[in-house]
């Protein structure tokens, strides 16, 4: 039975749709209204406020905390400076992906780690020989995501942390609506946005204060449906959807390496001593087998296909997480060359977007592929072209109004 987060009473109250889903053991809102479209447009035009509390959260502290995290994470955490956050992933001994998440350096011996699912057992198993303490703070620490172009203005109303000076992937401690917490400039929407980390008992205070501060800016409480569309536009992969954690795979073929899942950029094979490296060096020598690509489906073909059945083109407002086969162009009678794992119509871009894992030789920009598409219970294909990812990448995502000039000493 899903548990309630610290914000349950408020989100339940605001929600008219009674649309809950289970997220990592907690009840989480899918949407607050009959439709998630308003929430989606809040993310892209004003700001959306999401209860992020079910995210698995760990405090890692101690003299060896950085060295330890550098062992289990693909990123070199020993080089992460206080006040900075690193996105990365975690592999098993065979270099297969377990999960992805962020590591925030709060001070040289204190780090906060987030992941999609619980990993305390794994963390502890590999902590032998390190002076480090690991605390699962998922139940004690609430988290809010405030995402959208107006998120800075709204958040600045309730905090004295200078948000104009906070860079992309920065993190700072401070008072938010009168309670102590942390603000990081991170998110899962590919937009300007912040995540707020506070004790569970303070969560309602902060949530309510943000709703009040956001009211003049048309802030909306948002659920997971709107977030899912936004994250596909941002080109972010999701554990359990776009790749399966190696610990849940019954067969080898289902496992992915970071390269397979488009996370190769989080990996530095030159660096030694992290779990999975040796296997990934071998993969590199042999050349990676798979790659993650962004595809854009041909809208004219979708229209024509519906026309064959005498139907107007139909689009779901929801992102689709049902994986379908991807074939080489016109090769629907042959073996698939990959699978499309997430897809969505992008209301902002007016394009049909797909995230797919395909054989390397089909991963080059401009490659045309055939993606399975079902109309009237018949499985057909639509041409998808490999395009740049992220699909949606606004300048505001990384722009910092008061950024220190490059090379300036601090």
């Amino acid at each position, binding site marked *: 039975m899903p548990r309630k987060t610290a914000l349950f009473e408020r989100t339940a109250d605001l929600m008219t749709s009674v649309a809950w889903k289970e997220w990592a053991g907690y009840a989480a809102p899918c949407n607050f209204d009959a439709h998630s479209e308003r929430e989606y447009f809040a993310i892209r035009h004003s700001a959306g406020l999401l209860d992020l509390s079910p995210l698995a959260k760990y405090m890692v502290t101690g003299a060896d905390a950085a*060295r330890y995290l550098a*062992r289990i994470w693909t990123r070199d955490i020993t080089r992460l400076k206080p006040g900075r956050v690193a996105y990365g992933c975690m592999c*098993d*001994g065979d270099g297969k992906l377990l999960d992805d998440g962020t590591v925030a350096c709060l001070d040289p011996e204190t780090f906060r780690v987030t992941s999609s699912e619980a990993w305390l057992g794994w963390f502890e*198993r*590999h902590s*032998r*020989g*390190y002076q480090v303490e690991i605390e699962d703070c998922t139940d004690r620490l609430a988290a809010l995501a405030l995402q959208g172009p107006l998120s800075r203005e709204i958040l600045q109303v309730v905090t004295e942390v200078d948000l104009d000076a906070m860079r992309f992937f920065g993190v700072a401690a401070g008072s938010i609506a009168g309670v102590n917490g942390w603000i990081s400039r991170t998110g899962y929407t590919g937009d300007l946005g912040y995540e707020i980390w506070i004790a569970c008992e303070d969560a309602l205070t902060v949530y309510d204060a943000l709703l009040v501060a956001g009211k003049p800016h048309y802030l909306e409480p948002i659920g997971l449906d709107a977030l899912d569309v936004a994250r596909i536009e941002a080109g972010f992969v999701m554990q359990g959807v776009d790749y399966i954690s190696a610990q849940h795979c019954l067969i080898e073929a289902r496992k992915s390496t970071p390269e397979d899942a488009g996370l190769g950029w989080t990996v530095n094979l030159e660096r*030694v*001593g*992290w*779990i999975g490296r*040796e296997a990934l060096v071998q993969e590199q020598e042999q050349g990676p087998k798979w790659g993650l690509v962004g595809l854009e489906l041909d809208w004219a073909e979708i229209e024509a296909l519906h026309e064959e059945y005498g139907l107007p083109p139909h689009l779901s407002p929801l992102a689709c997480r049902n994986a379908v086969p991807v074939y080489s162009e016109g090769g629907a009678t042959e073996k698939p060359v990959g699978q499309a794992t997430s897809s969505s119509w992008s209301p902002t871009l007016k394009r049909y977007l797909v995230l797919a894992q395909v054989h390397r030789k089909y991963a080059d920009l401009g490659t045309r592929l055939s993606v399975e598409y079902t109309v009237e219970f018949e499985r057909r294909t639509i041409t998808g072209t490999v395009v740049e990812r992220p699909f949606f990448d606004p300048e505001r995502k990384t722009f910092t109004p008061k950024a220190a000039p490059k090379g300036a000493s601090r």
Partner: protein
Amino acid sequence: MTVIVIGGGHNGLVAAASLARQGHGVTLLEGRGSFGGVAAGLLHDTDSFSPNIAKALDLASHGLEFTDPAPVFVPSREGPGLLLHRDPVQAAEELGTDAEAYTNWCAFLKRVLPFAASQLDSVAPDISTTGPLLPLMRRGLAFRRMGKTDIHECLRIGPACVDDTLSEHFQSPLLRAALSARALHGTWMGPRSPSSTATLLLGEAQSGQEVVGGASSLVTALVAACENSGVELRPSCRVSRIQVSQGRAKGVTIEGGESLLADRVLSCIGPRRTLLELVESEHLPIREAGQMANLRLRGTLARVSLQLAEPIDYACRPGLRPKRCLVAEHPLDLERAFDHVKHRRMPTQLPLDIHQTEEEASILIRCATIELQGGWSDERRQELGELTLAALEPYVPNIRGIARVTRILTPADIAEEFDLEGGHEMHGELSLDQLGPMRPSMTLSRHATPIDGLYLGSAGIHPGGAISGRPGWQAAQVVGSR
């Protein structure tokens, strides 16, 4: 090539001498003040030391001599006890109705043990799917040559408990106790534990003649052999780190900061301590780290030393002055003692393994658990001495008058004094899943490690054993051949 050997126990000494005789420059580092490890003041049985190694290292020239092992006396409260010779002809008179069965048992062992012994005298087979097939086929053929009847018997009794196996053959509880006691050395088992027959066969396969003068003579000869072949012996030199760079062992750092470099590093201390404490975690793949974290090494060994005003005289056999004695009248005495180990308690009735001379007795207790509830303290140490005398009293009524306890080593003391993790004299329990190609783990049993240039050669590696020298010897051959 230069080699650093870590750990100057019997396996370290054997490995160092062997490598030096192969022409390599060898430095042997021992953390304690003297060499020999458990062979210098803890264990007494030398009958498992390999005569082939003695010959190859020319230990005879350093004064090493072998002799037939002394018979073991098992005293009894109700009869004359049993003086058990290994040789069935010599044993026949004492065994009475069991004599014929004992002759048959010894004949069976003589047929099947050469196969086991040949496995112990070679590096563990590579049974990974990528390993070569020919050596496995050779072993398979050698196994088949034992013949159908003996093969079936080995497969049947190997996983069985030693008490069942021996009860099928023998009436005398004294005989069954004496034979099963041996199966329990280095294990965490009682005679009714499954697979204790396998450890019995393993022990029997290693046993032969013993060293004249005991374990200390063996250590003296090994140290002399090392000195003679040019090994640099460095006692009181404790390694704090094995230096690894780019996945390769470069040398060691000694406590105090001195750094020693070498082409190869051979560790003859426990595999778990080597890989989890001396190697930085970053350099060890998680598979091996997990294997070592799961290695079982719960020590059950304690030792009590007695000074004797006059020789021990057993009431059931006055005038007999046996060198070796086992106090346990029935296999169930051993089983009950193990029950206490299992529940982390001090046994109420201690089985004793005694080596004695006219002036002193050294008593090994193999059922004192290092995991004792509440931990080992001065009081529990004294209690162990008291229980030892109490266990002897029914058989030697005047023991309190003639004996003075001079030293008591609890498992915790042994861990401390002999530098043994878990107080385990073999750096890893003997059990089916920690034997052969699985000792200490599937990927570490062939002496090489995932770290280039770092090798393992203690009793924690195939073939294990007490004072056998085989792991050190085989490791030296592997190191020398690369």
